[in-house]
């Protein structure tokens, strides 16, 4: 496990360096001066410009410029937004939790629908229910997410009037910012209308989370179906069957556990996919998350925000990636090395 951890950590550092390099080179690719793109101070006076140039060491070689950029990031200074002139690190700290919240709820929905359906399909392999689930997966995988979001708004919010169509919570409720994750903040607050706020927040999250979760759910269907089919073909399942266990016992005691391990491995990659879908969905549902903010910064040509938003979002995705790798390795000794069985 130690060697595995060291390898992952070195990969992590390597990746962060590459991401920082990409983000740093963006400041040269965007129009305008790189110092201004990095700091976001478009209205800097000549004297401020001189300090900025000193801070970012623009007169020195490109490597020391990169070094000073890294030290800026490390101290939490991502520059200021060109559009609003407020520090980007604060804005991101406010917006990222909303995206995380939406993505986690969507991931939960996707897994709790996709994995059982995939198992059902695998157990009835090549029968009618398998084909039905597979065709559902195909359609769900192909629907453009923005269209699905619009249809959901038209049907559930405008047509039936069941669920709200935009925002994170009704503006009537005043929730103090603690962690940024709405549900935790509501539970922490001491407002007398805590439960009404909680209900309202859950009503707001259902529609966007379901829209986000459809495409990942279909991928979970395919993954869990494939891994279940693979597990059901192994020797130990045949041995269990020869022992006289009923198929219910075989599935619940032996097959599901082994099939689930293989799925855990893919969660990281699916999470990345899910965050992108969430970005588009945030635009449609006016969800105050980082995706909507990033797309709005593109409209406003706010290069500092684009650059830092990219850096933070991809770091976040990669951290989730590494975490799932660790969980997978902890659950499955085979992933740690060949010496644990074959």
């Amino acid at each position: 496990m130690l060697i595995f951890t060291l390898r992952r950590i070195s990969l992590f550092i390597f990746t962060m360096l590459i991401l920082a390099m990409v983000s740093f080179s963006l400041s040269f690719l965007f129009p305008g001066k790189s110092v201004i793109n990095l700091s976001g101070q478009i209205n800097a006076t000549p004297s401020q410009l001189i300090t900025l140039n000193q801070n970012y060491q623009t007169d020195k070689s490109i490597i020391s410029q990169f070094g000073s950029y890294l030290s800026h990031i490390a101290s939490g200074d991502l520059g200021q937004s060109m559009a609003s002139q407020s520090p980007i690190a604060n804005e991101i700290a406010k917006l990222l939790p909303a995206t995380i919240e939406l993505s986690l709820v969507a991931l939960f929905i996707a897994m709790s629908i996709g994995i059982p359906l995939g198992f059902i399909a695998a157990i009835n392999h090549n029968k009618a229910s398998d084909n039905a689930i597979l065709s559902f997966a195909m359609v769900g995988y192909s629907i453009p997410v923005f269209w699905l979001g619009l249809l959901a708004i038209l049907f559930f919010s405008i047509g039936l009037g069941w669920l709200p169509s935009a925002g994170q919570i009704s503006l009537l409720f005043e929730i103090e910012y603690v962690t940024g994750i709405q549900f935790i903040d509501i539970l922490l607050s001491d407002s007398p209308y805590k439960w009404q706020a909680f209900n309202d927040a859950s009503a707001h999250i259902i529609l966007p989370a379901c829209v986000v979760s459809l495409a990942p759910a279909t991928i979970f269907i395919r993954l869990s179906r494939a891994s279940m089919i693979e597990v059901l073909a192994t020797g130990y399942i045949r041995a269990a069957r020869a022992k006289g266990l009923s198929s219910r016992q075989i599935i619940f005691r032996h097959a599901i556990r082994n099939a689930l391990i293989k799925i855990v491995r893919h969660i990281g990659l699916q999470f990345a996919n899910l965050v992108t879908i969430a970005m588009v969905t945030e635009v449609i549902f006016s969800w105050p998350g980082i995706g909507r903010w990033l797309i709005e910064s593109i409209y406003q040509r706010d290069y500092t925000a684009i650059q830092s938003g990219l850096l933070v979002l991809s770091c976040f995705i990669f951290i989730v990636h590494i975490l799932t790798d660790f969980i997978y390795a902890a659950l499955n000794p085979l992933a740690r090395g060949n010496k644990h069985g074959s």
Partner: protein
Amino acid sequence: MAREKIYQEEIFPSPFMQLWLIFRRTPVAMLGFTCFLFLIFFAIFAPLLAPYSPVEGHLDMILLPPAWHPDGNVSFLLGTDELGRDMLSRLMYGTSLTFGLSFIVVIISLVIGVIIGSLSALTKGFKSSFLNHFLDVVLSIPSLLLAIIIVAILGPGISNTVWAIVIVLIPQFIHITRYAVKEEFRKDYVLASRLDGASNFRILHYSVLPNIVERIMSQATLAQSTAILEIATLGFLGLGAQIPLPEWGAILANGLERFYIAPWTVYLPGLAILFAVVTTNLVGEGMRHALKLRKES
């Protein structure tokens, strides 16, 4: 005694032909393939087939519902939008933008990706390990996010979208080619031609590439469904095709304001995107199924 075979010579179909013979046997895949050809046909001949110009407005026919609606007019089969532009013509021209461009995007990134991938499969040591890690990093960033960033650098517009998606798709092709070429190079037939004195490039060209072409094709269908969705998503977000262009995602975004009074301006382009992606996925699925069957036989 009757001879079953008149000719002594036995025919061994090439790997690609074998794949086609198996592919042909699945009706659903063939249906998808027919629809795929139909879309390509539309993408090429839309200007000849479309009844009206995609940008010309008929001011006396504003927001006309589709022809099956009581208020519809049969000369505007799928209705008109808020400027009186014919939806059918716009969707037809949109085929060549959304579907046709995605096809071109995939071909460009396939060629570049396969060249880089097969060259990188021949390298060893530090360079190869660096590339491997680098690809891991790039592949772990979602493609749409990467496309959005590249568009942010290049600026909005349809040609910039095309380049962005080309760049985004290349790593996938590098990855799959590299993996497939490495796998083939370990096989005995490659060793045989190496013993004959063939150089690496000769082996790559004559022995390896014909054997991995169908795996690359199946990746290409996956890439195309991604490309269609991404062109449409960028168009919808206003970062791709700009206003008068009849790109499906952009048409949809355009109809958004009158969603409630004229729902067909949103339903129809969405259905068109769905149809194109399902068709591409059906072809890809059929191909992967055929590949699996061929491996088993």
